[in-house]
């Protein structure tokens, strides 16, 4: 990218002391023609006073960011950009060029306003805190320094004002000053700092290493200055993709709802879309999720929809310069991945298959989406079947698709089909079991078309993969009253790159396929000695050209199975089994066995509680699938899968939900992740388990399942014991190491979720929504009611968070050290969260703009209320008292009990 380097070069120049103006001068053609224009527009622009604070900032970034914009968006966007940026840019440029103080235009109210702005100290101190904490992250300067910083800040402020006196428009924005402070603190060359004009401070701040994605997004949203916006939009290119990806929902939301920003963000989105199909679809899904809200204002909607159609039309794809020549001669060859074990297909049939696939490529469009065709997700890309693809594969190079097969359509179809199941299931009558059968049928249909170049959006960012197969037997419909979310266990192959790695060949079921041939031999040839020869000659005489895959080692027999089965049993070192085998193998004519022993063995087989837990419950078919430990499941599926032998085989799981708005969930997941990272950075013990959400539309999406966990409801229902008893049963007696560790985990996670529940006002906290994992961690799920909503707005749950006596019992009672530790953790968690409040707030604030999520139904008050819950004004001591009070309140809360009772009555949740 040319832009970042350009910006860097600029800053080098400025740090060397060259006046940066020179650079911008060269790039600002024809700007002198505009003074009169500016004179006209200024007053109108200054109408809304609230934005004025930033006005001064935009001069400097403006003149620097201008050229990159022109470069990057060379072509069509330039016009659009010019249209939106209008006069602002020219005016500031103008100023810089002539360095003429434009005193005459400045209206006085603005200055008054700016003075008024200085007043709210809380705000500035908050900002300061924000900055210093950031400084501590990046430059190792700790919070203790911040107090020292306040002094120079004041002095510099004065210097700055003096310096820019010539430009009366220039107000004293707090940010600039603070940033300056930080910059000096960050050991910038102090001498030069003084000579550099003050107006470069924001730029310098933005260039600094502290200015990362979180701040960029926040500034992008808060600033109304087109220059800063442009600069940040360009700056996006330099951030690590993952960091930006975290804010993708915010970016898209801004894209949809703030038209001025749309044009600015577009180049970044475009570039990323071109680079990655996966990203393209993420953008599409987010657009789908959020723009449906905006249908009221048709103009706004068009931005998002336009981008959506643009991406889906697949025009944004990597350009390949030699595509022309290669496409002309697509050399199809017998499929490249044909390995030795694909033995049953003769070469001749392979050729026919090759032909068929070539034909398929031609009319792939008719097959796309047709699940019966077996190629529903096959976009018809032949690049991997060509000689080029084969050679690349052998050499370990990547093959990029150069045929013009649609890049996104396969995945789009895949996701569509999964969602279609989600929409179909609730209509299936006959209860959960009928739904489960139906689900299996649909999954079987989809499996027919796998493996393909499709992926699960929820895991693709962490583990790039191709879907191999969806485990039919383990798919399950989850408990839900009227919707039918379902969980899938998906076998995938981890790949280097979703787009450039070849898709593995289809394999059939795991058991050896030799039995049939075995039968042939015994049936047809009584003398097995020359059978293979006969078969071979026969096949040769038929000129099939087929290498008959006959080797004795490969033959599967029933006996093999039996022997291996016994061996497997033996490996379990089950005392009874061994004795049984020895009994069987010996001459048992006179062997006697006591009936009592048989009966005892039988009942002992059932004494293990785990076997009982695994029994089928027709009311709740999914419980059976879910209760199995993850690793066991992975092993079982891997063992039975034909793909299990692949080294990069992985098992992923996903919950697919249709008919529920997951956008709030996604917001909550973001906040959880943010909090989790904050606490991690602050080295606090609090532990959250954020789970990923991918919204596919306003009412459907994928959810990452929390593995190895059971809901408190299930614990109560299946084991009929209290939580503490369950802990003892699962982890050991009160003072055992396992129990203490589990207790520690429980406390750390419970405290973390208490903070979350309080800050976000998470409601609907019944026991079905609270999970316990196999290490004792408490995990909250289902954030459908946050901020200012509660189920049916009954307002049952008035307590700050859910803390029942049972929880406290696990911690060791109200007088225990653990309980005190628990409260300490909450306090620490709150303090840390308060320190980074801005990062959290900005997430919510951006999503609030324009979106009509139910959690924002109280409007701006929602964000304000959230802010208030951070209790910025409280000292640490006061906060501690508050925590004590909240814990007390929660524990005694009638409403928690009441809500649990309500849930029991209405939904049968214990």
């Amino acid at each position, binding site marked *: 990218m040319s832009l970042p380097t350009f910006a860097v070069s600029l800053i080098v120049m400025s740090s060397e002391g060259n006046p940066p103006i020179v650079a911008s001068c060269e790039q600002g053609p024809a700007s002198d023609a505009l003074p009169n224009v500016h004179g006209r527009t200024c007053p109108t622009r200054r109408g809304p006073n609230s934005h004025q604070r930033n006005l001064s900032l935009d001069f400097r970034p403006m003149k620097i960011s201008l050229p990159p914009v022109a470069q990057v968006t060379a072509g069509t966007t330039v016009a659009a950009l010019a249209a939106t940026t209008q006069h602002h840019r020219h005016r500031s440029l103008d100023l810089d060029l002539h360095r003429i103080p434009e005193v005459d235009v400045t209206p006085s109210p603005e200055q008054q306003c700016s003075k008024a702005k200085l007043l709210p100290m809380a705000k500035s101190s908050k900002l300061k805190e924000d900055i210093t904490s950031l400084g501590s992250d990046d430059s190792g300067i700790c919070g203790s320094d911040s107090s020292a910083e306040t002094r120079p800040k004041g002095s510099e402020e004065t210097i700055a004002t003096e310096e820019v006196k010539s430009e009366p428009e220039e107000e004293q924005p707090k940010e600039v000053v603070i940033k300056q402070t930080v910059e000096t603190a960050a050991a910038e060359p102090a001498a030069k700092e003084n000579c550099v004009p003050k107006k470069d401070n924001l730029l310098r701040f933005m260039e600094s290493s502290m200015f990362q994605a979180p701040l960029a997004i926040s500034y992008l949203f808060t600033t109304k200055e087109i220059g800063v916006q442009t600069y940040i939009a360009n700056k996006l290119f330099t951030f690590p993709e993952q960091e930006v990806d975290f804010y993708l929902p915010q970016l898209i939301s801004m894209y949809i709802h703030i038209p001025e920003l749309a044009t600015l963000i577009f180049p970044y989105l475009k570039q990323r879309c071109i680079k990655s199909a996966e990203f393209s679809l993420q953008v599409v899904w987010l657009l789908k999720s959020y723009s449906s809200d905006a249908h009221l204002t048709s103009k706004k909607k068009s931005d998002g929809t336009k981008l959506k159609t643009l991406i889906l039309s697949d025009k944004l794809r990597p350009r390949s310069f030699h595509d022309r020549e290669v496409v002309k001669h697509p050399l199809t060859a017998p499929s490249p991945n044909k390995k030795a074990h694909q033995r*049953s*297909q003769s070469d*001749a049939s392979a050729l*026919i*298959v090759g032909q068929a696939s070539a034909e398929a490529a031609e009319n792939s469009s*008719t097959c796309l*989406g*047709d699940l*019966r*065709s077996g190629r529903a997700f096959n976009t018809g890309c032949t690049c991997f079947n060509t000689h080029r693809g084969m050679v690349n594969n052998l050499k370990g190079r990547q093959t990029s698709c150069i045929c013009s097969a649609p890049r996104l359509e396969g995945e789009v179809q895949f996701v569509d089909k999964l969602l*279609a199941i989600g929409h179909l299931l609730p209509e299936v009558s006959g209860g959960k*079991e*009928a739904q489960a*059968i139906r689900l*299996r*049928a*649909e999954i*079987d249909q989809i499996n027919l078309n796998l493996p393909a170049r499709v992926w699960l959006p929820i895991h693709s960012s962490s583990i790039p993969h191709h879907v191999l197969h969806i485990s*039919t*037997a*383990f798919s399950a419909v989850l408990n839900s009253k009227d919707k039918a979310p379902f969980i899938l266990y998906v076998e995938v192959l981890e790949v280097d790159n979703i787009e450039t790695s070849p898709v593995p060949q289809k394999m*059939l*079921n795991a058991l*050896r*396929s*030799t039995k*049939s*041939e075995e039968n*042939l031999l015994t*049936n*047809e040839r009584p003398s097995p000695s020359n059978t293979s020869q006969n*078969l071979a000659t*026969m096949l040769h005489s*038929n000129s*099939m050209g087929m290498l008959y895959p006959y080797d004795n080692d490969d033959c599967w027999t*029933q006996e093999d*199975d*039996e022997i291996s*089965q016994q061996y497997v049993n033996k490996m379990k070192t089950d005392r*009874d089994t061994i004795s*049984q085998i020895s*009994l*069987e193998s010996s001459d*048992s004519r*006179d*062997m*006697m*066995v*006591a*009936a*009592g022993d*048989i*009966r005892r063995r*039988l*009942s002992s087989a*059932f004494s293990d509680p785990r076997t009982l837990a695994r*029994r089928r419950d*027709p009311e709740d078919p999914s419980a*059976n*699938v879910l209760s199995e430990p993850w690793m066991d499941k992975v092993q079982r599926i891997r063992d039975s899968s034909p793909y299990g032998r692949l080294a990069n085989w992985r098992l992923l799981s996903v919950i697919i939900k249709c008919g529920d708005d997951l956008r709030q969930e996604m917001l909550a997941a973001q906040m959880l992740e943010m909090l989790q990272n904050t606490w991690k950075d602050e080295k606090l013990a609090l532990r959250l388990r954020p789970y990923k959400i991918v919204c596919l539309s306003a009412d459907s999406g994928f959810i990452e399942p929390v593995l190895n966990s059971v809901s408190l409801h299930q614990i109560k229902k299946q084991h009929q014991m209290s939580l503490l008893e369950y802990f003892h049963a699962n982890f050991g007696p009160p003072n055992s190491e396992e129990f203490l560790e589990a207790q520690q985990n429980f406390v750390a996670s419970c405290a973390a979720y208490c903070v979350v529940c309080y800050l976000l006002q998470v409601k609907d906290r019944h026991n079905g929504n609270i999970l316990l994992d196999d290490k004792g961690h408490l995990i909250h799920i289902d954030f459908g009611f946050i901020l200012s909503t509660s189920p049916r707005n009954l307002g049952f749950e008035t307590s700050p968070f859910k803390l029942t006596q049972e929880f406290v019992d696990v911690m060791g009672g109200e007088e225990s050290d653990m309980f005190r530790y628990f409260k300490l953790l909450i306090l620490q968690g709150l303090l840390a969260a308060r320190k980074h409040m801005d990062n959290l707030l900005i997430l919510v604030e951006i999503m609030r703009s324009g979106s009509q999520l139910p959690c924002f139904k109280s409007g701006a008050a929602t964000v304000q209320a959230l802010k208030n819950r951070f209790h910025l004004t409280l000292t640490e001591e006061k906060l501690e008292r508050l925590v004590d009070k909240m814990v007390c309140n929660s524990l005694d809360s009638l409403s928690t009990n009441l809500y649990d009772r309500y849930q029991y009555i209405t939904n049968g949740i214990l």
Partner: protein
Amino acid sequence: MSNSRKWGNVSSKKPSKGKVVQIYESFFKGEDPSVGNEHFWHEFFLLKPSVSKLESELAKLNGEQLTQLKDNLNLICVQCIDILEDSSQIRIAVALQTLCTILKAITRKAASESNLDIVNILVGHDSSKKYIPLLFERCSSILSSNPNSEIKNLALRLILALATGSENLSQNTILEYSMNYTSQVLFEALVYILQDPDTRLALGQFVIQLLTLFVNFSKYEGTNPFVVQLSILDIELALIGYSQVITNHLADFCWQYTTQNADTHAGGWFSSLTNMVGSMFVSDEGSCRNQQLKNHNAILLALYEAVHLNRNFITNLVQTQADTSSPPSPTATLDNIRASAESNQAPSQIHLMANPASQPTSLLATFIEYCSIVTQDTKPDTLFNNGKLCLLILTCISEDQYANSLMHDPNLVYKVQLHRSPMRHRKIPSDPSLPAQPLACAMLDFVVEFITSHKMKRFPMELYLLSIGIAQRLVCYQKRCRVRLSYQWPELWKSLIALLRFLLSHEGTLAKKMNIFQLALQVVNIFNLFITYGDTFLPSPTSYDELYYEMIRMHQVFNNLHAMALRYSSIEGEFKEWAQKLANSLVNVRAITSHFVPKINTWLTDQGLSTPSEDQILEVVRCNYDSLMLKLQDNLDHYERYSESPHHESFFYTMVQTVISDINQNIDFTPEESVQKVFQDFASVS
């Protein structure tokens, strides 16, 4: 289509019909109208063939006359084969139709005049090596690459006509050519049709029938390339197509049966009474059903071959199918599909997502339901054979390790509707809320039902052996793999004991005719499996107690059985050895009964009770296990593995024969509407 168009068609057809007939006539007079007219054949194949005329002309001739006309017939046939590569679809259609008509007429003749050499009359001895394989090859290429489904249809029917040319499959010389030269191409073409979801629905049944015939061609005499290829077929789509054709066919029959039954039951007891009375006089319905079931032989044989030969097919047994042909009737949907395929609609539009009301099912679930219908009546020979084939298939399935693992998977549950014939002493439980259960449960249910409902004077011994063998195989699998199937085992035990009782009470008549000892031994062995290895596979601790309870409750039966076995083993007779084996096998059962019965009796007298409850007995049983010693018996979990030859060779031989005669009776090899359609399609294009 407008009226005027129709009129035009008719008027244009009339003279052409006349012309074709004239040509036929001149051929059959021994003339060759093509001489001197180089465009003759080109034009001939554009004329719509008159099947009836051609047939009647050929029917007029006797064998000798046919042989005399050989040269002319050869000429037509060779020209037909040649034209199959033509670019004009009409010519291909006409050629296929003409060939098929001639072939069918000659084979009909050959059936009555045994010395007629079909190949010689068709293409001549000398060129047969060239033309017959060429014919197969060209038909294959039509099947795999011709875009027109009607022409595919015609080609398939032609191949079917070739395959059913002789009532005796192994005497069909034409097939020999296909075996030796073109099996690969032909097989792949057939498989290709199964792969394509559209052609599969329209033509799948023909393909399945053809594959069955090819596979059975001189199966026992030598290697058959089709057997090899079917056994190693691993194209998932094709296998799914294969199973789908079978499933649709069977599901359709089940659906028809259910609706018919629902009609009779719906009217209440009175209408059912009148129905019963009515059916006493009108046996029409029965014979009609016989005929229907006979039609299933080809499908069942196809299922058998797939299960028996192809391991990859096993997965498809439990592959849930989202019902592509939902009831009402198969033909309706078939026509729908065909219509939509012709109108070149996007296939995805036909099959968006199956409608939520229809229950998805699997081949095995459907098949078990089908079996429950078919085996209700086993008296007529056709039904007996049908039932036997069903049980053989189930035997093959229950023997397969992988199929078993699928059937016992607690996550793969299905609702299988079993049909029970009404009997005097029991009501048919009509529960609409069928529980979904693993398929092994459904299979056991079916076996139990069979055991219960066939204890009749004309005792179907063979079927009993098979059905109990199925139960035995399932239990052996569970024992071996330690699978605890949650099944109501007492149902099985009760039915088995009831069977033993039946054998005892009819010993006088049965023992003369058949080896009841073998059957009894099989039953007792199942009990022995439960007694000695119950701990490895019983679903709950109490089920072991229940087993004892059942045996103690019916101890008289076992005692009598033992007595009978001793009786027969002491006298010389053909069953002596079996009787001895049976007596030996009863050792544990007798140990149990002799151990517990006195204990229970003393307990009863102690308690002063005369009618104890089940729980009380179970309690006594539980207390007295420890003083009981059981003998470990050898080879309880061994059974004779199923093998087609030599036991069942003749059975399959006759089955194949019925399939051939059935195809010959029921399939119109020369459907004029297909040709008509081709003419319409292409007349409007050109």
